[in-house]
């Protein structure tokens, strides 16, 4: 039984890969998944005599994130070299920002159980990513892929303002959403375009002195982050309770074993011998540039949410879900602009889209269908050209292959049959073939009509107009 109450103090270092087309210091592509060492040049492979040239877009994305998180923008930016030897780092130094990071003193607001809370942002700096090492167990060697070397990153360093795993998740979610809305990154934890290192310490509730912190690495999902935080909290409390000391160290989380182990302690921390990067000149940011970036800032989530309720009359619940993903919101707006039926578009996104995403274990960001085809489907269903059963079938095709619903309905003959004569003939036959059900109906079994409708639909291959079927059936019975 724990006698004392403890509280956690948590700060985050979040790395975000920026969505630039080219790398931070050369014009190689940043595309994910190319054959090893195909997106490389003398600069990003650290060839002798090569020199870095800063990609301006990186500065603009970093500024945009800083402005959206209420940071001060540093007017005279410099880069520094962080020196360390590792084969994934071709120059054996990383170009980063130590002394003058581009953004400082910001904050974001998160929603917690106890209301709104502000989380401070200590700084945001720009840096380059390293390559990837592949350990070949069979060949007893390691291989290096420099495709990722030089991909631009920003590191967002929070203040130690979080007190629980829930707050951490809320903060990360807020950052992710903001950055996605800005278009500065897709922020996918699984693919590593967003990575969080968590600094955790515990202290007795009510005290103000900070405990010794550890840094947790290798956290690849929100779930892993939450689990690792709880685990580390308990580990530290156990240590303290048993009279031992928490050691300042970096730990690596193993999510399958739900356990972390020490990677390196403060004692073997490296001296990175930072110094100003002499191959780059200072980047001076003036008011005009800031204003320009600000003016290009897209509508962020809060504003969008309010507007969806106001402009489209969407219920809170719908607006919240749809704006919860930049991709969904984009599709919603584009489809609505085409068909002018926001509530109908919203329904397709809220129900069928969410169902299919869950079924395929996909994120909203992975949606590939076009708003145009969704809008066409809304029109087809709304005009009664296809019935709702058929519409769902067509939507699955849109979701999977982004087919054109007009063409698909045409080619597969899925239009609803509204021809009364044809329907009467078919229903007449159904009534004739199912005397038992007819009798049941007349005996007051209302359900029997459902069976007859089903038989009719089956005979019509699902394309009959349901309202007409009901009406004709009742007449004939």
């Amino acid at each position, binding site marked *: 039984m724990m006698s004392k109450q403890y509280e956690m103090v948590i700060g985050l270092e979040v790395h975000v890969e920026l969505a630039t087309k080219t790398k931070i210091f050369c014009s190689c592509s940043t595309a994910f998944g190319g054959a090893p060492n195909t997106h490389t040049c003398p600069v990003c492979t*650290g060839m002798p*005599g*090569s020199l870095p040239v800063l990609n301006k877009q990186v500065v603009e994305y970093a500024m945009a994130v800083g402005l959206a998180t209420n940071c001060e923008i540093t007017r005279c930016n410099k880069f520094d070299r962080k*020196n360390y030897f590792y084969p994934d780092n*071709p120059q054996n130094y990383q170009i980063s920002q130590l002394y003058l990071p581009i953004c400082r003193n910001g904050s974001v607001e998160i929603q917690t159980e106890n209301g709104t809370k502000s989380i401070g942002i200590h700084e945001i700096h720009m840096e380059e990513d390293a390559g990837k090492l592949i350990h070949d167990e069979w060949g007893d060697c390691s291989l*290096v892929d420099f495709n990722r070397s030089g991909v631009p990153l920003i590191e967002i360093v929070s203040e130690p303002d979080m007190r629980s795993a829930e707050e951490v998740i809320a903060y990360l979610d807020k950052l992710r959403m903001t950055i996605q809305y800005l278009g500065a990154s897709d922020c996918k934890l699984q693919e590593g375009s967003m990575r969080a290192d968590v600094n955790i310490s515990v202290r007795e509730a009510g005290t103000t002195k900070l405990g010794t912190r550890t840094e947790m690495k290798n956290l690849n999902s929100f779930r892993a982050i939450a689990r690792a935080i709880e685990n580390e909290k308990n580990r530290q409390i156990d240590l303290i309770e048993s009279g031992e000391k928490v050691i300042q160290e970096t730990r690596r989380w193993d999510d399958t074993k739900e356990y972390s182990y020490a990677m390196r302690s403060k004692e073997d921390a490296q001296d990175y011998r*930072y110094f100003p990067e*002499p191959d780059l*000149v200072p980047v001076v940011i003036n008011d005009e540039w800031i204003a320009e970036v600000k003016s290009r800032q897209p509508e962020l989530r809060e504003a969008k949410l309010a507007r969806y309720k106001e402009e489209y009359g969407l219920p809170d619940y719908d607006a919240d879900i749809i704006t919860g993903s930049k991709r969904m919101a984009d599709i919603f707006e584009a489809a609505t602009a085409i068909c002018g039926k926001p509530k109908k578009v919203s329904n397709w996104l809220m129900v069928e889209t969410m169902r299919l995403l869950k079924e395929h274990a996909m994120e909203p960001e992975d949606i590939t269908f076009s708003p145009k085809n969704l809008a066409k489907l809304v029109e087809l269903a709304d005009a009664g050209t296809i019935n709702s059963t058929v519409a769902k079938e067509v939507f699955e095709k849109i979701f999977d292959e982004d087919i054109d619903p007009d063409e698909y309905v045409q080619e597969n003959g899925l239009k609803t049959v509204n021809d009364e004569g044809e329907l009467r003939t078919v229903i007449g036959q159904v009534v004739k073939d199912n005397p038992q059900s007819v009798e049941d109906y007349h005996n007051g079994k209302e359900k029997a009509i459902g069976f007859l409708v089903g038989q009719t639909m089956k005979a019509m291959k699902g394309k009959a107009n349901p309202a007409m079927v009901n009406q004709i059936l009742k007449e004939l019975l």
Partner: protein
Amino acid sequence: MSLTSLTAVELAKKIKAKEVTVPEATKAALDAIEKREEKINSFVTVDREGALKRAEEVQKLINDKTLTGALAGVPVAIKDNMCTNGMLTTCSSKILNNFVPTYTAQAVENLEAAGAVILGKTNMDEFAMGSTTETSAFGVTRNPWNTEHVPGGSSGGSCAAVAAEECYYALGSDTGGSIRQPSAFCGVTGIKPTYGTVSRYGLIAYGSSLDQIGPVAKDVTDCAAILEVISSYDKKDSTSLKRDDTDFTSALVDDVKGMRIGIPRDYFGDGLDGEVKEAVFAAAKVLEEKGAVLEEFDLSLVEYAIPAYYVIASAEASSNLARFDGVKYGYRTGACEGLHDMYKKTRSEGFGAEVKRRIMLGSFVLSSGYYDAYYLKALRTKALIKQAFGKAFEKYDVILGPAAPTTAPRLGESLLDPIKMYLGDIYTISVNLAGLPGISLPCGIDGKGLPIGMQLIGDCFKEKNIIRAAYAFECTREYRHCSMTEE
């Protein structure tokens, strides 16, 4: 007189006039190399076949008037720290003994576009660290004036090759005097331009904030013509400058009337050889007689330049040379166990003593707890030195002084006492710290028969001032070929 005794500009004129062909000029240089290399060793790589083939191509381009520039068809030697596509580039280090770049340095590309024929790559102090060309992993280069003496360094190979007339001109690089000091020791002319004038893309970095590529040639005219060609704004080098005043040959005017020349007393104090002092003063007199106004002044801070330089250059070098680790290219140790052992052995075996000394020095001054005391202080000193020059240039158009305290030392003397060797850079180093242009040109011969060099320093972007003063001085004398070239 052989073809190789011509200056680059003279040769280009003869080629244009069809008195000489490019292959003839190339062959003459290659023959001189064959004849003298055993004694001098100014080249790491000689590309005889490639040069002859290229000579034929260039000749065609000259014939059809595609190439018409002042250097079209003239064979050149390139210091081995500039990348040349497909040609071995070693920095005279074992650690790059097999490195063949896939791209060419921008300065070299500019020369090629102007019709240069590359003869090969010249020897240097390993990674340009040294003042004698004795730290090369491929043997010392000897001074063509007296092979018992060093040619200076680090561009000793380039300067010796020009003096020995194994090429018509050469490119060097200058981080703390590496063009100007060996030019003085070898009796040739060399310019270190304003920082940012010549692209550093493809120049294997030593001290990035100080490195500049520049020309080495027989006279000021050649140097101005070469500098005009290699200068360019290059998007690939962020420290490269956009300049519209790089028509340096326009400053080849024999007129210094009214030019204000400052003579820093600090440059003529203890440690300066008497004969050098006398020759440099005599040169100043010559300019005075031609109408220049001389004035002695105190530059100040001169004694701080060397420590500041060695802190900054070594710090940058320790980081710049980190990439030579045996992983991607260059030398890798034979037997090793695991990554760290591979790093350690590769670098221990691949780098020479002077390079290791500077990597250790640089790593030390950047390490936490020492950074402020050494590196930051050195940066502040650098800023003060720049200020001191700025003040001087309010009064003077040009600063005149010696290029080095002595003439070329004997082989083997300098490396015994590295501190003494470092002190030998005293007159050249602050020019790099302040980013200024400087020219070194011959102004006499000492009692041992070795050339004496003088240095003219200009304010940033004022290459034309020093070119003009140097040219006016040069007009009063004949170029002295070293005796080896007459054999």
